């Protein structure tokens, strides 16, 4: 005998494996055994095939690959003896699955065995077929199984019934063939046949409405009688469990009755009596009895309404709920959750008990109870329930806090009756479990705070207080830092004091302290620290007395290893040092964030709508706002390279403004948008006011306070950044910005490749049209003829057109045809421009323009942004 194939006995192998002290030892033993088995397989060893397969099953159970033994199973199945077949079929069921092609090879053996004269072999084949058959095998062997449903031995009939379930699930078309044989199984006395027959009928109802109708009409009464017989049957030792005859059969029968009664008043009616009997007579002091009661309650809840029965069912659940056994309480909570849809009022009565279950020490029960409480909440009980849950948050397990926090936040958002309550509850949650609060939740909170203008002072003071006691909750720190930055002046001066508040004395220095702590906290992450930096920048303007100290704190971060922080602090420092004149405008309070936009955006990712809806759906960005958003996106994209040409300064400046001012807004919107331009860029840009290049002599204050003309897209943005009147239209484009519009606005698409002329700029007083042409062989260069038309009744003198383009473009301006523009369109000025696009094909043209002229001897300045160039210039 081959030394490898002889191998060890199964028992010895198991001993050897048990004796292994480490996983590595075990692997070694298994590897050796597998090698021996493979060798035996290769030699086609007959004697030990049986034993080898038994070993393989053990090895498989331990989680090692055993695919090489699959063919051995087939060989054993094909052998004539029962013991070989037995182990072969077991191996087949354990080691193979319906997805493997090897399985097809077994179809023939199965067919033979299904027709075998030995009923035990037939049983084996049925069992294997029932566990692993594929759709193809189901089609091939369905007639055999159908026939076996009428086999003389009940042990075969029961297996054939379960096998049929597999077949109709794989091939639902075959269901109708099984309806009649299944119905006849229901008349049997043998419990095994009955329980499998009932299951077959239940599954037939699932796949075929025809079957459902048939059983409903023909079998409901019979099933009711069977259930009554079982329920009333005298002691049957073989099936008795705790004084109840075959609770498993009870349960399967109740389940089938449920399927038949659902949506059918007649069928439901005919089973009312027996359900009432089961619900009242079943012993409830043992698990088996409770299992039946539980199933019975579910059936009562699912079938057509019968008031009396439902009361009975809810009472049973009430009893379950007060049971000391945790298993029973668990299923009660489970069932009450299902009952919420039909008997919400009745479930509400158990609210107090359910709430206690949320605090149970058992995680499974807590989870169920929390789900249920979540369903129980409505407008009337939201306040007490939330209070209970939040109180419990303090003492709950760490691993439960995540779930609990999410549910509380969701409840608070959905049902909050008023903003102050919402803010209060959220602050409590943040203080207790801020680390478990998801980003979108605290973003929503900031949106709500920003909208509740009468509560700004109250909120910032409450947050300041909370920050004193719980500093370890990241999201609390973030929200607090944001609010202190925005509403720090209200914190210090007790602005908007509510009656319920205790007065609080906070000095400017205290407020700065709070932010400083946040920035120096080791556990603060990048977002928190960045938010703190912005808050400091804002405070520097709100609290002039602390300005120098704030600068020092900011400067400390100049050496930060995190690029984002380093950059922000350098930028902010230079704002503080060199640009006092624009600082206050830069750090204006954020415009009110649009709740509708935010919740709309959030709804995309989250089913629960955010915010306490105030019921005022804001208009989406209107005609003016839309174009404003696009150019910025453009410019953000275009000029994010290194030092830009001075000519694009306006754009870059804007970008930086966005970087600085919008970052806190971008965080709530879920997209963090770090300022992209390098620091020296910013310095460049900020200092352009002192040495303006000829082309764009606009100083910064110019840009900030420039034209009141709303039609100029840029003006909108200026309005945005230096916003003093919080108009909703101004907020919308900002939200759009954060969406990151594509680099080219849709307008472009209208323009064909022939480059039709466009109205590049139009105000109430002036129109500028562009005509385009290309020099042949030089696609990068575009010749533009600008034509200016006067739309006002006054002539313009000293007309001067200036244009600026980003770095990747080169611009050459020819002299204008005239510097006088006659009134009312009675003539025009033309001027030729030559633009060379170094990124031709990749980026579209974009241009800032500025037109100066004298009207009635008064200087007029118009500025604008040309972004509707045809796309591929």
């Amino acid at each position, binding site marked *: 005998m081959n030394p490898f194939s002889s191998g060890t006995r199964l*028992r010895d192998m*198991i001993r050897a494996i*048990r004796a292994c002290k480490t996983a590595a030892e075990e692997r070694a033993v298994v590897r050796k055994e597998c090698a021996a088995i493979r060798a035996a397989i290769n030699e086609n060893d007959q004697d030990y095939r049986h034993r080898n397969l*038994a070993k393989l*099953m053990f090895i498989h*159970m*331990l*989680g*090692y*690959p055993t695919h090489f033994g699959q063919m051995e199973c087939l060989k054993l199945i094909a052998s004539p003896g*029962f*013991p070989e077949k*037995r*182990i072969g079929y*077991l191996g087949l069921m*354990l080691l193979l*699955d*319906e*997805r493997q092609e090897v399985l097809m090879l077994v179809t023939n053996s199965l067919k033979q065995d299904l027709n075998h004269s030995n009923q*035990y072999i037939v*049983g084996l084949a049925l*069992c294997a077929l*029932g*566990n692993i058959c594929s759709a193809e095998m189901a089609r091939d062997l369905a007639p055999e199984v159908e026939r076996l449903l009428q086999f003389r031995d009940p*042990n075969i009939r*029961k*297996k054939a019934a*379960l096998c049929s*379930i*597999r077949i109709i699930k794989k091939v639902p078309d075959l269901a109708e063939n099984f309806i009649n044989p299944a119905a006849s199984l229901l008349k049997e006395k043998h*419990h*095994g046949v009955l*329980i*499998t027959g009932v*299951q077959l009928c239940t599954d037939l109802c699932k796949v075929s409405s025809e079957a459902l109708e048939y059983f409903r009409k023909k079998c409901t009464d019979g099933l009711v009688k069977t259930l009554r017989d079982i329920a009333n049957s005298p002691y049957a030792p*073989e*099936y008795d*469990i705790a004084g109840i005859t*075959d*609770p*498993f*059969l009870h*349960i*399967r029968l109740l389940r089938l009755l449920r399927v038949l009664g659902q949506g059918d008043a007649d069928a439901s009616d005919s089973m009312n009596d027996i359900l009432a009997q089961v619900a009242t007579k079943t012993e409830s002091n043992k*698990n*088996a009895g*409770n*299992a039946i009661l539980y*199933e019975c309650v579910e059936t009562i809840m699912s079938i057509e309404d019968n008031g009396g029965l439902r009361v009975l069912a809810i009472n049973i659940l009430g009893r379950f709920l007060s049971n000391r056994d*945790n*298993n029973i*309480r*668990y*299923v009660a909570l489970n069932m009450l959750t299902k009952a919420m849809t039909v008997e919400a009022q009745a479930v509400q009565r158990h609210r107090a008990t359910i709430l206690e279950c949320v605090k149970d*020490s*058992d*995680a*499974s*029960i807590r*989870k169920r109870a929390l789900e249920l409480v979540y369903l129980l909440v409505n407008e009337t009980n939201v306040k007490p329930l939330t209070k209970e849950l939040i109180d419990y948050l303090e003492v709950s397990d760490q691993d439960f806090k995540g779930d609990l926090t999410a549910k509380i936040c969701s409840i608070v958002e959905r049902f909050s009756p008023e903003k102050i309550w919402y803010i209060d509850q959220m602050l409590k949650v943040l203080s207790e479990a801020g680390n478990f609060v998801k980003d979108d939740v605290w973003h929503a909170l900031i949106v709500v705070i920003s909208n509740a203008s009468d509560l700004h002072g109250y909120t910032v003071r409450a947050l300041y207080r909370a920050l004193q006691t719980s500093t370890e909750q990241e999201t609390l720190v973030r929200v607090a830092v944001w609010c202190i930055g925005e509403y720090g002046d209200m914190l210090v001066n007790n602005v908007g004091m509510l009656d319920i508040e205790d007065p609080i004395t906070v000095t400017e220095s205290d407020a700065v302290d709070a932010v400083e702590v946040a920035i120096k906290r080791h556990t603060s992450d990048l977002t928190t620290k960045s938010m703190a930096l912005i808050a400091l920048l804002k405070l520097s303007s709100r609290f002039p007395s602390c300005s120098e100290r704030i600068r020092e704190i900011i400067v400390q971060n100049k050496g930060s290893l995190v690029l984002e922080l380093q950059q922000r602090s350098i930028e902010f420092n230079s704002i503080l040092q060199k640009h006092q004149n624009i600082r206050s405008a830069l750090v204006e309070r954020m415009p009110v964030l649009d709740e509708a936009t935010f919740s709309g955006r959030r709804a995309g990712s989250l089913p629960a709508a955010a915010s306490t809806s105030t019921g005022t759906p804001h208009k989406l960005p209107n005609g003016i706002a839309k174009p404003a958003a696009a150019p910025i996106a453009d410019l953000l994209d275009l000029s994010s390279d290194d030092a830009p040409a001075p000519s694009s300064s306006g754009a870059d400046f804007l970008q930086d403004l966005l970087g600085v001012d919008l970052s806190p807004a971008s965080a709530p919107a879920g997209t963090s948008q770090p300022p992209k331009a390098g620091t020296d860029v910013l310095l460049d840009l900020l200092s352009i006011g002192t040495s303006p290049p000829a082309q764009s002599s606009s100083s910064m204050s110019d840009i900030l306070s420039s034209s009141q003309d709303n039609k100029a897209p840029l003006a909108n943005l200026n309005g945005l950044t230096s916003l003093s009147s919080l108009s909703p239209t101004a907020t919308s484009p900002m939200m759009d910005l954060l969406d990151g519009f594509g680099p080219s606005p849709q307008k472009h698409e209208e323009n064909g490749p022939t480059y039709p002329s466009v109205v590049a700029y139009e105000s109430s007083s002036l129109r500028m049209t562009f005509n385009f042409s290309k020099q042949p062989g030089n696609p990068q260069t575009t010749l533009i003829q600008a034509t200016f038309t006067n739309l006002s009744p006054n002539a313009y003198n000293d007309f001067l057109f200036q244009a600026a383009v980003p770095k990747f473009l080169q611009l050459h301006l020819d002299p204008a045809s005239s510097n006088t523009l006659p009134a009312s369109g009675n003539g025009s000025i033309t001027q030729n421009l030559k633009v060379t696009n170094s990124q031709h094909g990749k980026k579209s043209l974009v241009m800032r323009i500025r037109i100066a002229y004298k009207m009635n001897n008064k200087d007029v300045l118009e500025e604008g942004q040309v972004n509707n160039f045809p796309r591929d210039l």
Partner: protein
Amino acid sequence: MGIRFILMVNKQGQTRLAQYYEWLTLEERRALEGEIVRKCLARNEQQCSFVEHRNYKIVYRRYASLFFLVGVDNDENELAILEFIHLLVETMDRHFGNVCELDIMFHLEKAHFMLEEMVMNGSIIETSKANILTPIQLMDKAS
């Protein structure tokens, strides 16, 4: 389908019997067994016998050093499964005489045969211990 898998695990967390009624790859099985064992074995006697895991439930019961874990669909009657576990143990008791971990280990195929007579394709076939054990006793006599 009802029952998705039946596991027997000792208190060290080693699998002693695994029967799946839905196909999982070896890696999935190992991961699943690890996760479940960690979840269930950490629970104490007072806690309920049901653990929610992924999209199904585990009903488990401990007998001496052996845990019986049954994965079931969410709409399955948990109390009935608990009763089923007890029936399984009683059946094994009747055959092995006070069944222990070693009986199952060394007679893995017999334990499987018993299970085969009780559950097929995730549904219960037979609840009478005598009916379950008859074919196994016949086979023992024959060999």
